[in-house]
């Protein structure tokens, strides 16, 4: 996706440094640097010296901004003149769980306006947790003639009207990926907006839209887009329709089926099976809504070369899963619902020795009457059979310290360990002890651990362990845990690579918050909600860290059944400042150029209400 060409012609008036010197070292350096893809490598490179900084900025074609408020689009455009592809992330992750107020921000539009002026040849836009309106989509469609790829994940603010505009105007579109968004689905007519002359689509994902689309239009679209390798349809597409699509798209590499529960005649079933047999390139399979055991055997031919199987919307029973997995020896990634239960997970352990990633989602998270789902036994079974397992997201209702210790002993290479014991603050169900030792085992054994989500009854000891052992930890999610400020302090002082810390409903207060002063500048964000932090603590933090963007969200919590009030503190990484804002605010905002994670920062976020407030208090 990223272009590795180096564009030699450039406007010399854009050069703001005098480091151009003789052109040959720059050219050679730029050619070399253009091969660098990782944005972290590029950041490191840019810090070497001015020459390298310039060579890097001229050769970069893709920019990744992990926090849209950490920098302004103007600054991005000034530093990187040749960007063709942008990835932006906006809201804090807890907005996925309705913890962030509506209209918080993360609007893409100001970015688009700048991009339209500075990057008219922009090709790709990938957004996560941003707000994008239909008007913005229209602006996008008409401002960028070369636009190729649009990916929206967990975004909101738009409707299918916006998709229609994209389909109508983006003549060179190769990718349209609409995932799990808060989209206003007004109907499926948007799909019919792709012109008959349009043939460039390579990836189409509308799996999470609910409305029916015009199947004929889709069939023709798929038929004429010969380069299509990703097709993920929505539930409205039946099995019979799926077969008709596949027959003309045997080159597909990633398939998301529609509803998998249609009553098929024998002949229809045979046709489906035969078509699937011919789809020799499919390595990723998803969808499978309402999958019935009856039809799953049709998938067996596809399973042989499958590396990623997403069954997280298919409530399979353990036997059905076992039979299916028996045909999936190459599986690397598996997402399932906990309807498969521990027996299903045993089958995972026995059939998928190459498994690297497992996610088990709860089918009925609010199950009141009967406890089903998976237990510690299932997880342990997988760990015995899948030694290469390194990424897990596991929702369960019971767990033991011993089980987790066994799991990490079997699979010491965990990089992502997210365990969600669904009842908040639940202890080891066999010993009634806290789950401290479980997570202690995880951080002690898994030295490569980058991401950790903890749950269950946890005291400060868990966080002592984390601080002491989790030296590669970058992301930590904590809920309903800890005993005192000490816990959070351990993490803040102990984890050198910590970038994102999200905390909710924990007894961490001002002392804990203020213990991280040395840490916050190197982090992307801190989230605290429903903790013991007070306004005074926030004020003090803002006073001590003037370059930090401290935001307090106050809310009238009208929650289910209870009046619960939340105080959110979101710390967004910010250095430097926009000059014109400085005048309005106080001298507390110092400007400093700082090549931190990606690019120089500036405080773009207007929500500096908190700092504003402390002006009056400051005197």
């Amino acid at each position, binding site marked *: 996706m990223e272009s590795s060409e180096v564009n030699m012609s450039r406007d010399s008036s854009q050069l703001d440094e005098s480091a151009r010197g003789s052109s040959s070292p720059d050219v050679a350096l730029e050619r070399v640097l253009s091969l660098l893809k990782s944005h972290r490598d590029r950041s490191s490179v840019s810090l070497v010296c001015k020459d390298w900084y310039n060579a890097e900025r001229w050769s970069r074609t893709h920019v990744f901004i992990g926090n849209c408020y950490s920098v302004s689009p103007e600054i991005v455009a000034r530093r990187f003149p040749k960007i063709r592809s942008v990835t932006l992330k906006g809201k804090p992750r807890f907005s996925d*769980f*309705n*913890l962030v*107020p509506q*209209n*918080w921000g*993360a*609007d893409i*539009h100001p970015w688009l306006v700048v991009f339209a002026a500075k990057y008219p040849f922009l090709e790709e836009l990938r957004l996560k947790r941003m*707000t994008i*309106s239909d*008007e913005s989509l229209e602006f996008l469609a008409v401002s960028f003639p070369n636009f190729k790829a649009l990916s929206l994940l*967990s975004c*909101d603010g738009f409707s299918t009207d916006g998709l229609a505009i994209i389909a109508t105007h983006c003549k060179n579109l190769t990718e349209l990926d609409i995932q*799990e*968004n*808060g989209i*206003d689905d007004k109907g499926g007519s948007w799909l019919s907006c792709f012109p008959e002359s349009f043939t460039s689509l390579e990836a189409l994902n509308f799996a*999470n839209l609910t409305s029916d689309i015009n199947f004929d239009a889709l069939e023709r679209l798929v038929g004429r887009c010969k380069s299509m390798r990703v097709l993920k349809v929505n539930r409205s597409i039946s099995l019979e329709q799926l077969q008709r699509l596949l027959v003309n798209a045997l080159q597909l590499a990633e398939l998301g089926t529609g509803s998998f529960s249609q009553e098929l005649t024998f002949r229809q079933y045979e046709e489906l099976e035969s078509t699937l047999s011919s789809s020799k390139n499919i390595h990723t399979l998803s969808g499978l*809504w*309402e999958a019935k055991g009856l039809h799953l055997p049709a998938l067996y031919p596809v399973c042989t070369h499958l590396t990623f199987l997403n069954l997280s919307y298919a409530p399979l*029973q353990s*036997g059905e899963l076992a039979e299916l997995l028996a045909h999936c020896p190459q599986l690397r990634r598996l997402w399932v619902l906990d309807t498969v239960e521990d027996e299903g997970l045993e089958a995972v352990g026995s059939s998928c020795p190459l498994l690297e990633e497992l996610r088990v989602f709860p*089918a*009925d*998270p*609010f199950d*009141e*009457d*009967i406890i089903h789902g998976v237990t510690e036994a299932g997880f342990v079974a997988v760990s015995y059979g899948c030694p290469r397992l390194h990424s897990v997201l596991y*929702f369960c209702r019971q767990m033991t310290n011993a089980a987790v210790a066994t799991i990490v002993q079997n699979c010491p290479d965990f990089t992502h360990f997210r365990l*969600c014991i669904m*009842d*908040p603050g639940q202890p080891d169900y066999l010993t009634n*002890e*806290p789950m*401290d030792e479980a997570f202690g085992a995880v951080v002690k054994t898994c030295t490569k651990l980058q991401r950790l989500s903890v749950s269950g009854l946890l005291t400060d*000891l868990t966080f002592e362990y984390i601080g002491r052992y989790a030296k590669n930890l970058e992301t930590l999610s904590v809920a*309903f845990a800890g*005993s005192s400020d000490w816990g959070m302090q351990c993490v803040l002082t102990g984890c050198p690579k910590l970038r994102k810390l999200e905390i909710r*409903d924990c007894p961490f*207060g*001002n002392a804990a918050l203020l213990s991280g002063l040395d840490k916050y500048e190197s982090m992307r964000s801190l989230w605290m909600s429903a*903790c013991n*932090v*007070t*306004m*005074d603590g926030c004020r003090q933090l803002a006073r001590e860290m003037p370059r930090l963007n401290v935001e307090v969200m*106050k*809310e009238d919590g*009208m*929650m*289910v*059944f*209870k*009046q619960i*009030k939340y105080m959110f503190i979101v710390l967004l990484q910010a250095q430097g400042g926009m000059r014109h804002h400085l005048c309005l605010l106080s001298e507390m905002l110092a400007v400093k150029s700082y090549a931190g994670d990606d690019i120089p920062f500036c405080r773009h976020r*207007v929500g500096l*209400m908190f700092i504003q*407030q402390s002006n009056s208090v400051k005197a």
Partner: protein
Amino acid sequence: MQGGVVIRVGSGGGSESGSMSTVSREDNMVVSSEDSSYPDESELELGLGLSLGGGFKIQQVSRGGQYARILTAKDFPSVVSADASSSPSPSSSSSSSSSSLSRANVTAGTKRSADSVAAANGSSQVVGWPPIRAYRMNSMVNQAKAVATEGFKSTMENHKNETSMLEKRTIGSYQNSGNSKLRKSLFVKVNMDGIPIGRKVDLNAHESYEKLAKTLEDMFLKNTTSVNPVGSRVREHEVARPSKLLDGSSDFVLTYEDKEGDWMLVGDVPWEMFVSSVKRLRIMRTSEATGLAPRLQERNQRQRSKPI
């Protein structure tokens, strides 16, 4: 979530802000501090945008009044539309802000429907927990309704292949005829007014109302000031202490929702009948149990004459 400004503050130690309620951790629960006063509140007019002006209006939350009100899905649309007027978009873009606002409100409905669905199902009392994306939550709810009706059929279908599976599922949700002898455990959710996090209790582990009430009192009404890391969830009961929850002597009364959706006082029907019809429990403030009040008096009279 609405605009509106309320702080929940913990005890921390900061006392200069006036009276703050103590947030004590009782075992695994977090007690919210609705009853404290917030002197800061009226002074903090938090503006969201330098250029946009405006800000959240501070809404005083009525103290103690709303806890027991049972919210239905009907309550939520009004919350969402209230959003539109009170919360201007904080972003600095002008042209799209109003339209994004209207869009956002539509999606607000979509996103919040996870909560309202959860409310309607009488499920989790904790916002955003378990941490599952709203999209997936909505998706599963829609599917669950479809699956439940299919449940019996699929049970029969799989019987041919998986006899052991069928065995398991007889104990499962589709065969929930209320025969408690089949069930190993029967967990129901218990919530107490004023406490955000609910607990679960196994009804089949108790043989009588008295035992159940004592367990609940231990869970919810005991005063522990520190987190006991080795504490058990069901502690040993004191000997022969009459239950405060059942005899009306405490500020709280034990109620339950039956399978027909009606809220009843616990203790009226024989234990087995209760177990077979209970969906979930709620420890309600006596002052809120207005609809049940007449029966409360009758109950008290009956209770006193019942042998314990």
